[in-house]
């Protein structure tokens, strides 16, 4: 019954997230609300780690394949993209690297300066 209970809790948190998405007029997706709900439930002890762990880890492990169908959908949106393809690709590649490097290096710097920075792996 372990997996059944875990699946129920994860889907329940997802469902609460979807309800919040419906009632709160902000551009925040259900998954983000659900993530916060689940984190709070774990912190407060309403949900125990052992009651969500394996099923949650299973879903996270298979997450990359969930992006295959929408990515394959690029064949249908190609018509829209093809006119501005070169600038779009250049902007995408450069800005993705910039964000990754700036975030990584600045966090490194902030962590080194903060107290106890040395104990981070």
């Amino acid at each position, binding site marked *: 019954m372990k997996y059944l209970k875990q699946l129920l809790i*994860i889907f329940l948190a997802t469902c609460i*997230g979807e309800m919040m998405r419906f009632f709160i007029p902000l*551009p*925040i*997706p*259900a*998954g*983000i609300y*659900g*993530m*916060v709900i*689940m*984190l709070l439930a774990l*912190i407060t002890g309403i949900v125990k*780690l052992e009651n969500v*762990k394996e099923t*949650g*880890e299973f*879903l*996270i492990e*298979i*997450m*990359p*394949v*969930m*992006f*295959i*169908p929408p*990515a*394959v959908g*690029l*064949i*249908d*949106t190609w018509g*829209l993209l093809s006119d*501005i393809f070169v*600038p*779009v690709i250049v*902007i*995408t590649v*450069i*800005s*993705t*690297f910039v*964000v*990754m*490097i*700036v*975030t*990584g*290096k*600045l*966090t*490194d710097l*902030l*962590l080194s300066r*903060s107290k*106890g920075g040395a104990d*981070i*792996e």
Partner: protein
Amino acid sequence: MNDIILSSATIGVVISLLAYELGAWMKKKFRSGIFNPLMISIVLTIIFLLAFGIEYENYNAGAKYLSYLLTPATVSLSIPLYMKLDLLKKHLWAILGGILSGVLSGMVCILALAAAFGLSHEQYVTLLPKSITTAIGIGIAEEYGGVAAITVAVIIITGVLGNMTAEFVCRTFGIKYAVSRGLAIGTASHAIGTGKAIEMGETEGAMSGLAIAVAGLMTVAAAGVFSAFL
């Protein structure tokens, strides 16, 4: 062929999983980061559909059940984060500062390049939410007059690119801490990049998952300002 595909509720899922397995096999066989399983699986699936004249809609009739799991999987990202909660508490300000720097530098970069390429305002706001999760990105694009379908495409390209290059970038630029690597990947390439962060380590995965949510929310706030430009 389209009739055969439509007769099965699982074939779209089988094609997708099989393509990913093939990609994983190629990565192992050739031991090279160029062989990214996600990228390979997307390319193989597209080739398969084109070769047999299968409509995307018919493939997706079954494959959509894979994507259906995306929201519960996103919710589950709170689990590794909870397991690393002590890191989040201890370094809260460094973490928030790091993500904010990434969000702002990304938007400045897109603005500068959009201006350099002479893109229209509509094209610029379409690209603005490219580093964040699709569900938030679509909202931003629509709100400020972008083309949501292109935003989705660019978000996916960004994610796959981040997934492919994360290890290379972190190594080349000497990003020291696991916390920084996770935040860098999640802020730059949302959930698709997070898949790679999880492979890299527990801390990387947890921080990348956190960055999806925080960067998404910061982008919502910052887009209000940035959409006024160009």
